[in-house]
């Protein structure tokens, strides 16, 4: 039997929480095929279903309908085999604070049923520059060090796939950049497939070989970041004015593809912002213009194009609450 070419395969997968009438359909007939050896990103706003998909694939949640396999094993019927071949990095750092770094590795080795784990643990401690702190309690570690140790735990048993659930949420910019380097390095050095979820556009763009955009439990687009951005033809001009603009007149300008209102702004899709922006501004009384911004094709504009919303729009408070809840857990 030939080895499967996909690290993860998901077919028509649905997950419902609660009853059919009152419950929530968190995943709605999701189909994905994630090639081995890739860094695959699930990009979407909070509540899109990203974490639910990870829970289902790691065996934490049951499947309502559909099929999924990880590392060639059926998630539903061969759960133990799946769990022996995956690693997991949580959004909130989850370590045993009463233990040292080495003791956390020891416990992970026991849970994975490893016997000769110490050479691998030493290698990982060295790789993540934690060797000199191996015998310190992890409660004394910085957030970055805790994240590194968590990734080391995920790699200890040489998994085929690592799941990273919003690995950089709540981190400062420098720690986030460090994590990006680590994810790239881990993928390269340890030959592991990485499935990460994020709602940071730049993170998906910087780290992922392929990205699936997920919204309201459905995968609405999938491809390499370049392929996805190529779907958006042209640039997006956001124009905020104090009065309504003459939309039909703007739409009739050369190079304007689409004009649509969004909140307090007008989103104007144009072939080239450089060529068209002066024409647009000539149609709008100068004193009514509050703000103008131009976006070149990005995963953000892809999402906007597909859903008519920005990632994170409508949910700022939810995001902040989630962040603070995770920080509280990390600092316990």
């Amino acid at each position, binding site marked *: 039997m030939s080895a499967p070419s996909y690290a993860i395969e998901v077919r028509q997968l649905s997950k419902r929480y609660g009853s059919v009438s009152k419950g929530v359909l968190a995943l709605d007939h999701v189909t994905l095929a994630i090639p081995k050896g890739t860094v695959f990103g699930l990009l979407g706003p909070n509540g899109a279903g990203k974490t639910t998909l990870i829970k289902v694939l*790691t065996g*934490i949640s049951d499947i309502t309908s559909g099929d999924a396999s990880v590392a060639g094993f059926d998630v539903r019927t061969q759960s133990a085999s799946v*769990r022996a071949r995956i690693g997991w990095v949580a959004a909130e750092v*989850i370590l*045993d604070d*009463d233990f040292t770094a080495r003791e956390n590795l020891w*416990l992970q080795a026991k*849970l994975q049923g490893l016997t000769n784990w110490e050479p691998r643990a030493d290698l990982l401690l060295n790789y993540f520059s934690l060797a000199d702190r191996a015998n310190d309690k992890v409660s004394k570690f910085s957030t970055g060090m805790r994240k590194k140790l968590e990734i080391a735990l995920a790699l200890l048993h040489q998994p085929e796939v690592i799941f990273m659930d919003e690995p950089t949420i709540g981190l400062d910019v420098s720690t986030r950049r460090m994590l990006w380097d680590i994810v790239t390095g881990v993928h390269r050095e340890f030959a592991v497939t990485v499935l990460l979820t994020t709602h940071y556009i730049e993170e998906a763009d910087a780290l992922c070989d392929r990205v699936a955009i997920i919204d309201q439990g459905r995968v609405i687009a999938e491809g390499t970041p370049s392929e996805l951005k190529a779907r958006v033809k042209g640039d997006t001009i956001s124009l905020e004015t104090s009065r309504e603009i003459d939309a039909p007149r703007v739409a009739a300008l050369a190079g304007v593809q689409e004009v649509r209102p969004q909140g307090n702004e007008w989103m104007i899709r144009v072939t080239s912002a450089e060529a068209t922006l002066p024409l647009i501004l000539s149609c709008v009384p100068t004193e009514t213009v509050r703000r103008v911004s131009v976006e070149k094709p990005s995963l953000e504009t892809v999402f906007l194009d597909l859903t008519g919303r920005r990632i994170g729009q409508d949910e700022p408070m939810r995001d902040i609450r989630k962040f603070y809840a995770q920080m509280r857990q990390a600092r316990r």
Partner: protein
Amino acid sequence: MISQFWGLYLREILRTFRNPFVLLVTVVQPFMWLAFFGSSFANAPPAVIQAFAEGNSYLAFLLPGTLSTSMLSVGMFGSMSTIQDKRFGFMKRILITPTSKGVIFLSKALGSASRGLVQFPIMVVAATVFGVSFHLTAVEWLAWVGGLFCLAIGFSSLFLAVTASSTDWQTPGVVSNFITMPLMFASTALFGGQYFPSWMKAISSVNPITFSALLGRSFVLGTAVPWVNFGYLAAFAAAMLGVGWFVSARWLKVE
């Protein structure tokens, strides 16, 4: 399976000894019982002590009962440790490995039972300080500890089964209040059962705390040893382990 069990079991033990507060509570709680409750009959007429305590020392009578009732709180701590793991996400970390829910249950139950036995040597030393003398053979010491261990496993399993699907900190406390009060007073842990009403006698006659208290008391007071009680406690532990394993395997939730 053995690897996972051993890792999680040792984690329970190490965490206990690294948390001075938990250790302190584990040790001090039964000691307080002995010191305060045991001393409350210090000046009682000998006839009263004879009637209640089947001997001259209420402390000697009370020690096996106190050790037995303290195994109830051991169960509550085991259940709280599980809920803590759920709330801080550690349970997810465990379950995203080839570790079964049954093994998690087993490690928690045996871990908290082992932790409970820390009380034993301290209580024996404390009772000695209070004037109780011990004349037990090695087998009797082992049987006494074994009986308490079975009782602790039984109650730990019971608590873990009842709270398997809960992530609420309050649940173990509520369950504890519901279980502890009737089981403690409807037993012969604190008083002899000769003055109980018939319905309390009925509960006491099947209450594992009664069986454990009577077993331990026979060793301390030097009366005939009811070895059948040891079998009853072992059966109680085995039955509760079975129930706990089944319930945890089916209903242990991580969130």
